[in-house]
């Protein structure tokens, strides 16, 4: 089993060193790749100076495009699993092993879920999460408790799909579409930290638009998409 940790980074000069140094020191058994998504600050220079494994995108593609570049890297280098890992220090590396274990049981997508066992707080911030959960539940009959969690492990056949598909992004609507296509999705309880430095790209209007986009996509688009044909899980082909 080979796991690639994909770390998309956009203007993360304050966090990237701490996050990657911790991965290198404490988890040398995993490979990682930083995808610098055309940062305007010196994220790329920091990575080069420290000698990190870096995909340096010359222009900003957004999270989906950056993550996809990481998936292409995973596909090209024959990784069996890939995990999306935030560069801002919200994700905790100690849960990677737990997620990977769950994925090795034959799951295609394993979500690092804040609410798999714990209750979701009744806050305005979680309203979006609830709406998206509800939309997924109506359309796929599956309960995904933390659809917006960015910490997800993908299996080899997911890597091959996500690496090239125009409309598969690391977002809840793709998870819904994959469930519909017959992929096995499961959740594992994790804890997450608040981001330590820098600012989140999600402000209130952006978060609203994101929610609208997700709910419309799950309710009105993913339902009518014909399911993608999945490869049979099994011994991986050595190509």
């Amino acid at each position, binding site marked *: 089993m080979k796991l690639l940790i994909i770390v998309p980074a956009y203007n993360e000069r304050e966090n990237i060193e701490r996050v990657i140094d911790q991965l290198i020191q404490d988890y040398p058994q995993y490979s990682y790749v930083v995808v610098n998504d055309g940062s305007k600050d010196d994220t790329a220079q920091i990575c080069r100076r420290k000698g990190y494994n870096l995909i340096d995108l*010359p*222009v*900003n593609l957004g999270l989906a495009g950056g993550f996809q570049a990481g998936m292409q890297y995973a596909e090209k280098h024959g990784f069996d699993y890939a995990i999306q890992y935030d560069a801002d220090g919200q994700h905790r590396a100690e849960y990677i092993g737990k997620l990977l274990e769950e994925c090795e049981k034959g799951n295609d997508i394993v979500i690092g879920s804040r609410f798999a066992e714990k209750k979701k707080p009744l806050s305005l911030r979680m309203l979006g999460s609830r709406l998206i959960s509800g939309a997924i539940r109506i359309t796929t009959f599956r309960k995904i408790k933390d659809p917006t969690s960015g910490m997800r492990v993908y299996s080899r056949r997911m890597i091959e799909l996500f690496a090239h*598909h*125009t*409309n598969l992004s690391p977002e809840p*609507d793709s998870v819904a579409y994959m469930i519909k296509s017959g992929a096995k999705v499961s959740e594992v309880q994790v804890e997450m930290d608040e981001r330590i430095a820098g600012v989140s790209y999600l402000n209130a209007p952006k978060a609203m638009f994101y929610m*609208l*986009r997700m709910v*419309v*996509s799950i309710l*009105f*688009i993913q339902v*009518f*998409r*014909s399911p993608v044909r999945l490869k049979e899980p099994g011994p991986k082909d050595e190509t």
Partner: protein
Amino acid sequence: MSDTLRIVLIVASVLCLLFMLRKISQSKVRIDDAIFWIVGAFVLVIISIFPQIPSWCCDLLGIQTPVNFLFLFMIFILLVKLFYMTIRVSQLESKVKELSQRYALDHMDDEVKQDEK
């Protein structure tokens, strides 16, 4: 709004939805870009089913007939969309420019190295 107009609007919206869904399954359009058309089609369907909404807006804005309001509304939405599209196209063009410049410069180094060997 006449019943015929309402039916025409509903049929056009449904066709727009079907067309977008087809393009999505062909991977010809990104979902992010299709959302605008899908939400737009839904708004038109709702306006056609509940003509009270444009009538109410007419009274509010002092417009004579709902059809006129519909024209104004659509032109306004399309102008806003066009405005954002202009920005998108500009950004895309500068990204393509940056990419090809970077590609060319990076490859220039490659050729020099090959010549030295």
